[in-house]
């Protein structure tokens, strides 16, 4: 069994991360009835003997003593991390696994990447090493951050670089929250494009997320709950709603519900690696199957169900509905249109009592309406995990490598160019030590190249299918 480490950077990264740890604990509590520290738990948690204080030794087996998250919390201002440390999760985090500062990054990628990166480099490396040492077999780093700000974006991508240097064999999955068009941070296009270059070059897989999508999903749930629609009551303990009641939720902590969705994504992504099933799908398999060319590693994710179904024994019809939902835009975590673009590859991770025949039936059903690239007509990767998520009888996570991310990147590029042409706010960046104009031109060029790669693939769509001729053997 392998372990994964979560590195949460910046305000967004830490808020999402916090929700992740809360939901992970709840999921394991529901599955692990005997309180024994097992392999599944060890993938994200250490079991520490805290009787003699926080520096106690790790306990490999036996009863759970004190669970500590395999996490590194990084933020250049203290507010968010402090809140976490005073909240219900305070015992889950090892006080040595935090890196904070006071003044923040001022929404400036260069401050996060160049200044704080330099300043905290050694500290970060040391803490990463420590976390890695506690792992028997470290397989994957999950970085959670946003692209539009300064810390998550700048320092987050700096850490990404570090991870590649220091731990080249360990996979790097990055969950990135992309800014929307109406983002209130004016310089978010700069920050995002500068960060994109790093993601292009150093990440194994990126799961882009857009706040707009999360917001729409949460609204939808809210509507369903309030309208009292038959057969779709939200169970109070389901992992979609947070600990607070759903009615109060949107007013008090609007981001909690949205962050829960992202947290669920990570939980489902790792479920087959943690729990058993008839067709396991490990994290290294995700990267292997979904990334046909090194830079095309941006995956569109969609999750179902987003709200619980009232009955537990769901007849087949409802099961098929789950598959249909996964391919509907309502369930996607970014605003994109995969059905009208080209699929390069698609992965389906199913949890719960679902068998291979259900999977195949639905793939047959949905295939005709999807366009797959000519050299990967049957590009499906499937996984069956027997353990369903808390409060549901089954769930489905779909990850698609699809050219529909192209418009998102094109928009980002346009917003960047609007500012860059006028040289707006550029001086805030260029005055930072280590930042030059070439950083900007390289970044935009990297993004343009990426868009071009997607363009070339799109050009093959719908064209005549000419299979390359096979090798001829002399008879």
């Amino acid at each position: 069994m392998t372990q994964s480490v979560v590195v949460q950077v910046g305000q967004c990264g830490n808020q999402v991360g916090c929700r992740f740890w809360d939901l992970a604990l709840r999921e394991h509590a529901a599955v692990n009835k005997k309180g024994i520290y097992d392999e599944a738990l060890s993938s994200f948690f250490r079991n520490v003997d805290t009787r003699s204080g926080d520096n106690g030794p790790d306990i490999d087996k036996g009863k759970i003593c004190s669970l500590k998250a395999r996490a590194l919390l990084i933020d250049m201002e203290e507010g968010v991390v402090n809140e976490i440390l005073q909240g219900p999760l305070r015992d889950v985090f090892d006080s040595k696994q935090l890196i904070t500062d006071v003044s923040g990054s001022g929404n400036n990628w260069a401050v996060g990447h160049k200044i704080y990166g330099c300043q905290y480099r050694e500290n970060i490396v040391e803490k990463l090493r420590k976390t890695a040492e506690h792992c028997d077999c470290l397989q994957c780093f999950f970085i959670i951050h946003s692209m539009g700000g300064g810390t998550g974006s700048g320092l987050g991508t700096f850490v990404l670089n570090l991870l590649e240097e220091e731990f080249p064999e360990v996979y790097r999955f990055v969950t990135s929250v992309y800014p929307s068009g109406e983002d209130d941070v004016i310089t978010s296009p700069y920050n995002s494009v500068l960060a994109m270059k790093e993601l292009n070059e150093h990440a194994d897989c990126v799961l882009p997320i857009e706040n707009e999508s999360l917001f729409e999903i949460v609204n939808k749930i809210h509507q369903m709950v309030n309208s009292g629609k038959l057969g779709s009551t939200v169970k109070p303990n389901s992992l979609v709603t947070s600990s607070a009641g759903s009615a109060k939720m949107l007013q008090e902590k609007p981001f909690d519900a949205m962050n829960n969705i992202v947290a669920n994504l990570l939980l489902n992504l790792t479920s087959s690696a943690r729990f058993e099933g008839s067709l396991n799908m490990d994290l290294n398999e995700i990267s292997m199957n979904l990334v046909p060319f090194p830079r095309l590693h941006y995956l569109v994710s969609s999750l179902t169900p987003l709200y619980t179904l009232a009955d537990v024994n769901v007849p087949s019809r409802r099961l098929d509905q789950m598959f249909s939902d996964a391919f509907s835009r309502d369930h996607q975590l970014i605003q994109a249109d995969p059905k009208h673009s080209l699929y390069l590859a698609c992965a389906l991770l199913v949890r719960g009592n679902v068998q291979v025949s259900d999977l195949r039936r639905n793939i047959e059903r949905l295939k005709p309406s999807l366009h797959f690239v000519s050299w990967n007509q049957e590009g499906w990767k499937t996984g069956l995990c027997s353990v369903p998520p808390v409060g549901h009888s089954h769930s489905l996570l779909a990850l698609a490598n699809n050219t529909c991310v192209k418009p998102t990147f094109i928009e980002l590029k346009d917003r960047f160019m609007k500012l860059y042409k006028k040289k707006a706010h550029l001086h805030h960046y260029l005055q930072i030590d280590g930042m030059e104009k070439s950083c900007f031109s390289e970044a935009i060029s990297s993004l343009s190249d990426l868009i071009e790669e997607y363009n070339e693939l799109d050009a093959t769509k719908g064209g005549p299918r000419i299979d390359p001729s096979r090798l001829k053997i002399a008879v």
Partner: protein
Amino acid sequence: MSIVTVQLGQCGNQIGHEVFSAFCSDIRGTHGLCSKKENESYQDSCKERFFCEEESGVPAARAVLVDMEPKVISQTLSMAASSGLWKYNSHSHFCQKQGSGNNWANGYSVHGPRHKEAIMNLVQKEAEKCDRLGGFFTIMSMAGGTGSGLGAFVTQCLRDAFPTSFILNHVIWPYGTGEVIVQNYNSVLTLSHLYQSSDALLVHENDVIHKICAQLMNIKQISFRDVNQVIAHQLGSVFQPTHTAGGGSGYSRNPLGDLMEALVPHPEFRMLGLRNIPQVPETSLPYSTFSWPGLIKHLRQMLIANAQMEEGIDWQVRPPQPGSSMPSTNKPLHFNTSIANLVILRGKDVHSVDLGSFQDPSLYTSWLNPQDAFNAWRTPRAFNKYEKSASLVSNSQFLLKPLDSIVGKAWNMFASKAYLHQYTKFGIQEEDFLDCFTTLEQVISSYTNL
């Protein structure tokens, strides 16, 4: 003679478990109409072949379990142990912490050399426990990373360490519509490598077994367990003890050797397909009766028309007319030419069954005498509750189309260079791929021109 089984990867281990369970439940089950002495002889032979008597009294499977991650092996071990009827030896397994990531190159070039010694030690130990080693039986899928890549490497090691032993690879072909996106690459790499070191490849296709589950067994929500149990039944119908034609009165002492001798006359042709009839839901068994002439007729037509199961057979397909010297290009379309066939009959009245129709020379290529091209094994002992059961192991064009399809899809992907960076990362280069494609195109060409 004993056979050592090597279970590789998730698929190999899941199927292996069902196979040993099937053996066990068969020998404990009804023996049909054969004599008690016959039955005892059958049971002893099976036990010697596949199990080792341990002090605890619970027979231990002669098997080595290999996987690169621990979840499946620990499940397999505990499921076997909890049956109370048989188990795996508690030391005969090897696993690591991190799987092969569906990457053939990772399984073959990284895990293989790294763990060669440990794995071969376990195999050696199992081999030494056998009074007489009859050969190796490996179970693997070719779609993933461990079974396929590490499996190919282990097969090579077996060949190097046991140059005179028989090696039979049981290979599972994945569903055509994706289980793994790079399955066609992994398949091409596996098959071409196995062809160098293995004696024969016995193939089961998931699509075919799935159809049997759906249409013959009437299973509504088919799980991998269902598929694996049908596969185990079919394998059992081949490997449970039988009397070979010339073999005297006892049960065959050398099943793998007999199989190879019967079916693999030429090293270029090693792909074996398997058909077993009848297949009915367990609940229907007591109410079903079959006649030998009916079963033989169906089995023969399944061979000729390359049917996957006993329903939906195309009865229009006929062998070419005898007497006319026919170049292969003029043979009737859809006719499945055989190199050699083996029919195994189990149950009531087997000795009276007329198998002359299988010796028809028009079924075969002209290289062998029809008497040599066809073999039959029989036993009056019923198998797995079926009063009558007939299996066909065939070295013919059964797998030509599926093989061609896999190579075609892999080539298509290769031409676009998709995913190649994942393989080159672990040392498998484009030239290696080309070599593998060449090997398989050669095999395809050979089988096409029969």
